[in-house]
């Protein structure tokens, strides 16, 4: 037996012991022991006038955490963009992407058909998800992350040129910055009005109405803007890396 095998066996045995120990002390399946879930469940309808408690937690009760999470995505996308653009600038003397990708003939008709058929459905469903955080499951992050998937569908179905046309780089950069900044601005504005960062100062409305739950749908909208633009920018940067020399136009 090699040293490597002995080490792997010992590590697996240790992992098994620690896992068994941990699972032994876990609460039974489906039995959540903490107090917070029950408190939120019973209080959220009176306090925030909305049925989806998860959004109330994300955008209100722990809104500062969500602000941090939003900036994690912002910094990640900025990092990807900087690293890839720096590399392209060094190898191509061109920080901005070239116009042409691989020739569109490399796709089968079936791939084109299913990709394009999925675009409208994706836009409708994901926009619905994204703007109803307070009424139905989902919300800004989920809706927007899946919405960005429609640009990926266009890339798969129609190719790089079409993808570049529907996902303009500067518009996405602006949208991402506005989405990230607006969250902080809303926080500061509510602090100026109510004295607490991200206090829910807007009228709460009636439960189940589109305009209800105060600042929650507003914050959610800007989170969604940031997420969709962030994901599209990421797709754009990665897609730019896959370009090959454009074919000579036929005379």
């Amino acid at each position, binding site marked *: 037996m090699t040293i490597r095998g002995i080490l792997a066996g010992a590590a697996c045995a240790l992992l098994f012991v620690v896992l068994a120990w941990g699972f032994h002390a876990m609460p039974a*399946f*489906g039995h959540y022991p903490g107090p917070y879930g029950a408190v939120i469940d019973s209080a959220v309808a009176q306090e925030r006038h909305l049925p989806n408690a*998860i959004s109330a937690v994300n955008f209100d009760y722990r809104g500062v955490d969500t602000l941090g999470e939003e900036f994690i995505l912002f910094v990640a996308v900025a990092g990807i963009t900087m690293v890839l653009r720096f*590399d*392209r600038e060094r*190898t*191509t*003397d*061109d920080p901005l*992407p*070239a116009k042409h990708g691989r020739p569109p003939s490399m796709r089968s008709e079936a791939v084109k058909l299913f990709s394009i058929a999925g675009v409208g459905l994706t836009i409708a469903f994901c926009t619905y*998800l994204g703007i109803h955080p307070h009424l139905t*499951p*989902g*919300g800004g*992050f*989920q*809706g927007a*992350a*899946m919405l*960005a*998937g429609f640009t*990926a569908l266009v890339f798969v179905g129609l190719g790089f040129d079409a993808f570049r046309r529907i996902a303009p780089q500067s518009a996405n950069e602006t949208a991402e910055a506005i989405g990230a900044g607006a969250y902080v601005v809303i926080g500061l504005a509510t602090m100026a009005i109510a004295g607490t960062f991200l206090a829910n100062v807007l009228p709460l409305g009636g439960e189940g109405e589109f305009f209800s739950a105060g600042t929650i749908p507003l914050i959610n909208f800007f989170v969604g803007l940031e997420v969709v633009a962030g*994901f599209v920018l*990421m*797709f754009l940067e*990665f*897609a*730019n*890396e*896959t*370009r*090959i*020399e454009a074919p000579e136009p036929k005379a």
Partner: protein
Amino acid sequence: MSALQAIALILAAVMATLVVLVREPKRQVFPYMLYGLVLSIAFALLQAPDVALSEMAVGSVAVPFAILATLVRIEHGPPPKQ
């Protein structure tokens, strides 16, 4: 635990093993996408639709897109000059 939940969890374990067993990165992406889908079904059955939707977007679209683009870049070298 309901039967459906048990099936979804077992499927998740099977798909995860499959992802590890496929050793070629380009082929590995596809079981990985299916693994994301199975995981999001499991989350939905465990009454966590928010997490299921996030997993679907990130696990089945965003990560495979990034991996595939990276593999193309590794295979074909840097993008050409203008």
